[in-house]
Each structure stands twice: as structure tokens, then as C-alpha cells.
């Protein structure tokens, strides 16, 4: 199944984002990652499998800074 890796940087923003998504009915979890090309190293991401566009919209409207988005 496709999964979306939304990198927020710090664990605080990752957890905040995860909680926002969960409250809006989107299953999400936090994982530690090494960020992709051009990034500054390790950090945390929110992992979702569905409702990607809705999730992105919710995160942005709630002030969660998104550093990177990857698909797997």
C-alpha cells in the first residue's frame, strides 16, 4: 500500500500534526527518518496511507511547517 511521508522536522510538530490528523479521522503515525536529498539530516515525519490532500491541507492550515513530502 502506498504511504506518504510528511516530514515536519521536530518530534513536537510531528506529534502535533499526527494529533490534528487523528482528530479529523485520518490515521497517522510518527516515525523517525533520515530526510531525503538536500535535507539537513535526521528528523521526524508523519506517515499516512490515505487522504493525502486532505491531510496536507489540515496540516498547513494548522501551522505545521512541512519540510518535505515523499511517497513510497
Amino acid at each position, binding site marked *: 500500500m502506498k504511504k506518504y511521508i510528511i516530514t515536519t*522536522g521536530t518530534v*513536537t510538530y510531528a506529534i*502535533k500534526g499526527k494529533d490534528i490528523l487523528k482528530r479529523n479521522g485520518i490515521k497517522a503515525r510518527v516515525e*523517525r527518518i533520515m530526510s531525503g536529498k538536500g535535507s*539537513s539530516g535526521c528528523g*521526524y515525519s508523519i506517515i499516512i496511507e490515505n487522504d493525502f490532500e486532505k491531510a496536507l491541507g489540515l496540516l498547513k492550515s494548522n501551522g505545521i511547517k512541512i519540510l518535505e513530502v515523499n511517497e513510497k
Partner: protein
Amino acid sequence: MIYFDNAATTGAKPKAVIDTLSKALMEYNANPGRSGHSLSLKTADAIYKVREKVASFFCASGPERVIFTLNCTHSINCVLKGVLGRGDHIIVSSFEHNAVMRPLKKLRVNYSVAAVSLTNDEQTVENFRKAIRPNTRMIFCTGASNVFGKMLPIAQIGKLCRERGILFGVDAAQIAGVIPIDVKEMCIDFLCVAPHKGLYAPMGCGILISEKNIPDTVLEGGTGTNSLELSQPEFYPEKHESGTLSVPIILGLSPAIDYVEKLGIEKIYNHELTLAKSVYSALNQKEEIELYTPEPMKGSYAPVISFNFKGVDSTQTSRILSDFGVAVRGGLHCAPTAHNYIGTLGSGTVRLSFGTFNTSNEVNRFKGLINSENFSKKLKISIE
């Protein structure tokens, strides 16, 4: 022991706080924000929930604005050293603790001291207003004197700052958990909290609510993110939280806040102030005792009283009281600025400060003690 030293730290902590510390050491013994395993993420989640609770308690704009520091002094240093720059002017009050005055001395920043009226809050606000200059960057003041209990009109001072486009920082060490604090309503940009005092949390961490960004850091190091970059990351709160957090202490904050909320801040304040007024009244009747403020009134004073037996050194009085099983603090209370303002720099004062676990029975025992022959004899011997 009768513990009347709650301004230093609250003498008893709720059982739920103690139990949480123990549980944290057993079940949350991983470093949050560093690893990716389930225990680290579980601990990070638990810490985040405490941030949410603290943010809600102080009406902060979000959990990410809650920074955990080493203690309130560290929080104050973060604000003063992180915000003030060359050419900036700052206004502080005449009751500031050394946690404010020593960083200002180190920074060699230009500062003014606004006199706090013991009886007229409008005059206090006017004194702050008169001290404002074109280059005033911030007003930073205590919420209440840790020596004399006088509460400052921080909501009015905050309003003044907002009108003038000046940053506003508050040392809430003596007021958090004693009066309701709403950082938005009170226009507070930086709130520095000592949770181990009025919030009944364990000693070992401080809180800094940072509604505005603090440009510079006082501590740089590992934040668990952006490791390739040698510059400190800009993300809040991690920007100001380098190194490992005091996880058990922070988790202990949660039941501590629950305790305060369950009892109710108004109920807590009324209880403690009633005890303070009762002691004040008894002290005021004794000719040999000197008091330095009017009777503490609701809304104007925190439950803190300073006094002296005339002609007796305050640390000596405190030692004698300790011999009789009463814990107080004598001396300058790390606040020479306050003592200088009131005129007690030479003698210091004996400070009594009350908490939720103090009772009217303890107050009555204290009154009985200071009126007893035995006590008077010991005091007399100490003078001779």
C-alpha cells in the same frame, strides 16, 4: 515541622505527583525526540501532552510555545539574553529577583527601574510609562515580590506594552498557581514559571511560554533534528531545548496542574491569603516586631509576609524559629533590589510564605510560639 517557606518551594507535593515520578522512571525511561523506537516515541507523546496541558493552563497559543528549561532562572536568562541587543533599553521593577538583575548586569544593558507602589497600582503603571524611552525594547517584571508579596498590575503593564509596541516579559515564580494567568489577555510575550512553587510540581525544571520568537539562544546543542546543520534549528520549542529533557520531572507537571485545577486557583489563593492575613494581624500586635507592607489584601498581595524582630538579625531569627520547628527564610532572598527599595538591605527580613498544605492550626501554633516565654528567652539570648 511547620513549613512556611513555600516561596522557596512548596513543602509538600501531591501524592499523584510523587507516583508519576516513580512511574516515569519505570515506564518512560527513553529519550524523547531522539530515537525512533516505540519507547522513545511513547515518551515523546507523553511530553507533548504535558506541553498541551501547560499551554491550556496559561492560555498560550499552542503547545509548541511551551519551552521546558532547567528552572525559572534559566527561563528568564533565555528571554533577557535571547532578546536584548546592543543599544536596547529595558524597564524592570523595584522588586526584581537576582534572576533578572544578574543577567542584566552581565549583559551591561541599559535599564531603568520603575518604582512599585505598595498601595496604588495606577501609580505603578504610571511609573513604568514614564520610564519608556524611544529605544525601550522590553518591560520585564515580577508578578509578585518574593520578599514582600506585593503583586504587580501585570495586566495593565501588559496593555501598556502592547500600546507602545514593547515586548513584555513576566517572572511568574510567585504567581503561577496563585492567580489566573492568561498570556493572551494579559498581553504577555514571555512568561517564566517556577512549577515547583505554586504548581506543586517537583523541583528540576522551569517553564518558558514564548508567545513571540526569541532571536538568540543561550544553550546550543543536540535537538534530535537537522543534525547535519551546525546552526541551532529555528523550530520551537526545540530551538531552546538543547540536550536531554528532565522527563520524569516534566511528566510530574501533569498531575501537579491537575491538583491545582481540581482545588481551584481562587480557593488556593483565598486559603493561603487567609493564613497570611492571620499571621500578619498577630505580628502587627507585637511592639517588638517590624512589618514592611500594609496588611495583605486580596488582589494586591501574594501570600508572602516579611518581618523582623527589632534589633535581631533576620537569619538569627530564622535559625531560632527552625530550632522550634518552624521553617522560614531569613536574609536577602536573592533580591537585594527589593530590600534596597524597602530599606531592609542591612537587616534582611524573615519571610513567611504559605501553601495549600498549611493549616490554620499551624498558624495558631506559630502565633503561640512567638508569644511564648521560651521563644522570647532564646531571642533575648541571641541579642546579648
